């Protein structure tokens, strides 16, 4: 092959220092300083892949989450495409007239409040997430002097859960309100889609809430700092994604009908 070049790290790496079965766990946790995860001046290229320590685990979890979210995005893209197709579809009635049944539904204004709650929940989630990587506290927790990271994250995550539940309650209120106006799931094509979109999104949020709750559990049960960091980090990214999906879907429902 013409394209053979040996990446330099192979030669540079000292072969001795690495023990078999040492996956780098237990090293210093990654912090917002964005070093290799093992303090200043750490060159993680010097260790083989799979044993590069905590930050490697964090990245691995994030990348997987990213792929999963990309797939999930396509789930919603499929529904949104179907939305546009159905909005433009009609049929011929008995008199050979072309009819398009789509009647836009006016959305309950509580959805705006829900959206605000969801945005707030993302803000608190982000505070929790970034807090997990504050260097001073991370080291303190790693050494075992206390649990400043977990405590703070727990508080912010509870707030997130609260706002998330508020959002879901608000969605239920919106469904009730629409039902009172006789806009049911099995009604006009537009309400088919309204419910399809809001319900599938709500199911996603329930999963997201479950992930956040699990992450909070891991704050107590997770044995190493990095485990707690990974759980918080990924569940929060997932939560953000659900928030972004909602804003896009809401915009579609509000302005796209």
């Amino acid at each position, binding site marked *: 092959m013409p394209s*053979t070049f040996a990446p330099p790290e192979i030669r540079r790496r000292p072969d001795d220092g690495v023990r078999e079965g040492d996956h780098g766990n237990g090293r210093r946790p990654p912090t917002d300083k964005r070093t290799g995860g093992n303090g200043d001046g750490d060159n993680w290229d010097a260790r083989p892949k799979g044993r590069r320590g905590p930050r490697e685990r964090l990245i691995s979890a994030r990348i997987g989450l990213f792929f999963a979210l990309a*797939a999930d995005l396509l789930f919603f893209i499929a529904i949104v495409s179907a939305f546009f197709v159905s909005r433009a579809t009609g049929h011929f009635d008995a008199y050979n007239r072309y009819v398009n049944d789509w009647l836009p539904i006016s959305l309950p204004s509580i959805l705006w409040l829900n959206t605000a709650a969801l945005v707030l929940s993302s803000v608190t989630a982000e505070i929790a997430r970034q807090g997990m990587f504050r260097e001073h506290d991370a080291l303190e927790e790693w050494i075992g002097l206390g649990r400043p990271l977990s405590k703070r994250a727990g508080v912010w995550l509870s707030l997130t859960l609260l706002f998330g539940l508020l959002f879901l309650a608000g969605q239920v209120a919106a469904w009730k309100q629409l039902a009172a106006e006789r806009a049911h799931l099995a009604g006009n094509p537009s309400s088919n889609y309204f419910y*399809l979109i809001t319900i599938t999104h709500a199911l996603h949020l329930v999963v997201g809430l479950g992930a956040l709750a699990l992450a909070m559990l891991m704050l107590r049960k997770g044995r190493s700092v990095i485990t707690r960091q990974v759980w918080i980090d990924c569940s929060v990214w997932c939560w953000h994604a659900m928030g972004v999906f909602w804003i896009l879907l809401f915009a579609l429902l509000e302005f796209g009908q």
Partner: protein
Amino acid sequence: MRALRLTHHRTVGFAYLGISLAAVAIGSFLSLIMRIHLAWPDRIFPGHGVLKPEEYLALVTMHGTIMLFFVMTVAPLSGFSNLILPAQIGATRMSYPRLNLFSCVLTAVAFLVACAAFFVPGGAPIGGWAAYPPLSASALAGPGQGLGMDLWLGSVALFSIASILSGVNTLTTITLRRCEGMSWNRLPLTVWAWLTASLLAALAFSVLLAALLMLLSDRHLGTAFFVPAGDLINGVIVSHKGSGSPLLWLHLFWFFGHPEVYIAILPGMGLTSMVLANFARRQIYGYRIMIATTLLIGLLGLTVWGHHMFVAGLNPFAGTVFSAASLAIALPSTAKVLSWIATSWRSRMQLTTAALFALGFVSLFIAGGLSGPILAQPILDEYLHNTFFVIAHFHMVMAMAATFGLFCAIYYWFPILFGTVLGEGLGKLHFWLTLLFSYSTFLPMHLTGIAGEPRHYAQLNGMPGPAAHLLATTMPLQRHISASAIGLAAVQLVFFVNVGLSLWRRRAISQNPWSATTLEWIPAGQALQCHQAPCQYSPDSTSFIPQWSTASENCPERE
């Protein structure tokens, strides 16, 4: 001992192979009953009686579903990627072992749910593997469209989730767990194929999942996504309001369906490239281009779904666009064929069974692929759609080619899976008989298709009218096809005997019996590092450079 851990990728890989072995047994059994019924419609099945039309349709549906999902997707992609991929990229494990086990269990559950459809009142669904609405949206449409259809939808939904998750796992593993020196352009083509197929799986199955949820909601929650206004089934008006569109389902389904067929074939393509190069002792012709065509096939595969819908009421202009895109996808496919031919041409290839199966893959891919561009022209498809010509097309290019890919994988990697080799004598016998019977089964289907034999038809003779007369003339050919199909199934016994004998004898072999260059054959104890591009053999065929060797120390070829 280590391999026994449940979350170990080899355990999971073997479990996937187990699932698809059970599935292929059931799926083939169903197909044989169909073939016997088509050729000898009055035949009485012991313990059952004559096959009723709705039972025939249930067989068609379940045969397609089981084969496409639980064999052609599970074995090449999930099964072999777990068994081989980590070793090939020099990883010690998959990125998410527990998630991996979970998707495997989910796949098994999905399979059981699908099989359960046979045993519920009404039996299995009868709408084909594409489950077109409006008939799939209502239990009135026939036996099997009630609970059976619900189970089918549930099964495919579970399968979709499992496939998305295992796709995510594979993608992450390839992105992050390549060993030192395993740069992207040193990845074996098999890994590129698994990468592309996993990407397609993660994306396509998400779309299918959305469509399935919508169809379930049409069935049970009274929505009308796919049910047209005034839909009349068996004299009953099913939907009063709304104007759903069955065509919408077709769009969503085939957006998934076309990539799905490439998911089934891509791993075989990658393996064929590697195996041909290995036994020809030649570099792969146009390695970079082969990587590009793999990705391009995946990418273009997402844009051609409309070629399944030419006669479904698609706007003719849209048909033209889809037709052009479909012809475009023939280009990277042809580039691959050319590379395979260029790699093997005049190479004095060592014709092991694995190499033979790779060559068989090429042969079937060409023979079946040729009918693709014919079908991809709306004007021709107008006649050929829903005939056995299509059946012939995809059984050659997908079903048989992918099966040959699987056999190639089993013969080639048997030493890695079971620590010994399969017997070459029986292997070659198995290959030649399988090749003969595949062609003998599926080539004549082109003819019956051109004669007008429709898909999903329980009976071809004994009906009035000129068209039926034409169909009845195909009966001798039908009997030939059925006999060949039985032969095709029967000669697989040779394979199982071979596996049994080889495992019993356990012939001792060297660490790297095929003198292969990729990392899964690395000697035990050697550091997992990659120093070379794959498939480097010296021009005079005296030595080769495996990926783990530093450039100076070439391994001498063994005789």
